[in-house]
């Protein structure tokens, strides 16, 4: 399995760079080590393509994805702890009960969906098309480019523009004290 051998070789050679990248991304040296280890396990077990033309870029991308997942999980944990504390005032006897009634959950879920729809509605048409294809449907940049007859650079520009607008929308929601954001 040459692809795996290439990758494992690059994995060891790139250790210092990957740790530096992960430390910067997570601002946590221990977490960076964890992700670097995790990456090794993934390389051992994952199904790999026949050949990986750019092993280093491949490893960076894999580390990037793992780091994003980890950061997201950490935020979710922090958010849950906060909710638990906030809800701790509901008590049955001495036991704090944090469960919201299912109806409230459903309405909250609906509100969140509506809010995300509003954000996406705010995107310019072509930008919305690209964003939806990539983020919601999971079509790769390259394929979107050939479908729409534009360059991959243009796809990237549309995506960056979409991210910027969504970020602004979310921020103004938060500023207006609308629904609190999920982690």
């Amino acid at each position: 399995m040459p692809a795996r051998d290439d990758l494992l070789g690059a994995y060891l050679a790139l250790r210092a760079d990957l740790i530096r990248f992960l430390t910067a991304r997570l601002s946590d040296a221990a977490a960076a080590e964890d992700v670097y280890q995790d990456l090794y396990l993934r390389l051992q077990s994952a199904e790999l393509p026949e050949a990986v033309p750019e092993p280093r870029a491949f490893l960076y991308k894999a580390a990037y994805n793992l780091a994003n997942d980890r950061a997201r999980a950490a935020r979710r944990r922090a958010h849950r702890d906060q909710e638990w504390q906030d809800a701790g005032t509901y008590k049955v006897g001495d036991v704090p009960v944090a469960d919201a009634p299912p109806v409230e959950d459903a309405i909250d879920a609906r509100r969140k969906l509506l809010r995300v729809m509003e954000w996406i509605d705010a995107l310019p048409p072509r930008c919305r098309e690209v964003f939806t294809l990539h983020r919601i449907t999971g079509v790769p940049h390259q394929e979107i480019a050939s479908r729409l007859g534009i360059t991959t650079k243009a796809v990237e520009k549309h995506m960056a523009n979409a991210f910027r607008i969504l970020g602004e929308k979310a921020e103004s929601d938060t500023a207006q004290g609308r629904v609190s954001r999920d982690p």
Partner: protein
Amino acid sequence: MTAPETSSGPRSAADWRARLDSAGAAEADFVAFTAWLEENPAHRAAFDQLDAVLADVDAQKEHLAGHKVVRFPVWKKTAAVAAIAASILAVFLVARPPSGPGPQTAWETRTGERKDVTLADGSVIHLNTATRVSVDFDHGARNARLENGEALFEVTPDANHPFTVTAGDQRIEVIGTAFNVLRHDGAIAVTVSHGVVRASATGKAEAATPARLIAGNLYSRREGESVYAVTMVDAGAATAWRDGRLAYDGAELSKVVSDLNRNFDTQVTLADAALGNLRFSGVLKLDSAEAVVRRLEGFLPISATPQGNGIVVRARDQ
């Protein structure tokens, strides 16, 4: 440390995210990204903040898509429809335009009968009891008319050929996929199970902007009036009739009786209109009017007696 950036290189969290999410992200990009992160702690915070927004979007993916992905070979630019759902549907669009000129067709069900009809475009209409529906697919349009009764529409998405349902002066335009329409005794009720629907009154009751309904919304209105209400319901309950059941959550007895009378020839009447305000929650199997009313007696302070061809419901003696 200075980032090796050109003037067109990524400068913000949004730029970086777009660059690194692309398949073309190279080693040099990640090295430059590392430098950008190290440059200022605020950069990492901004990147995480954007990821939180994307997490919100990702959490709604299924709802936004609503459909499993059908890849089709040729991407055609769709008409600029403002609604986001439309742009999503365009992606899943099966290239299957409604077949050419066809005769207008109508279907109806007798009291107690239910029927499923598959249309030329693959859309399915489930007709509930005592219902009449007609369809006009002429010239590539997709128009259905609910003359009376109740029907669940499962519409094959096609952004180029909107699917419209008319019920009296009620117009419903389909952006999404499945919804239930009830027209009975001058009342209109639209319940959406999947996707997005635009509902508007026509004629005298026409309002400036149509109501945009999403899954779980119940839109209700009296015919001829422009005022409507949108509430959140369990869409599964509204379409339980497909399995020969009626499901209620705190529904007024008058509504239950009205539903029963649409389903059975044996008509149920309330001796006292005030009984109609009693609330009922539960699932009723639609076997016969007699059996259903007998079950209701177990839940509500009522007693039923046969009278002529029907059943009269009275307050139970205490």
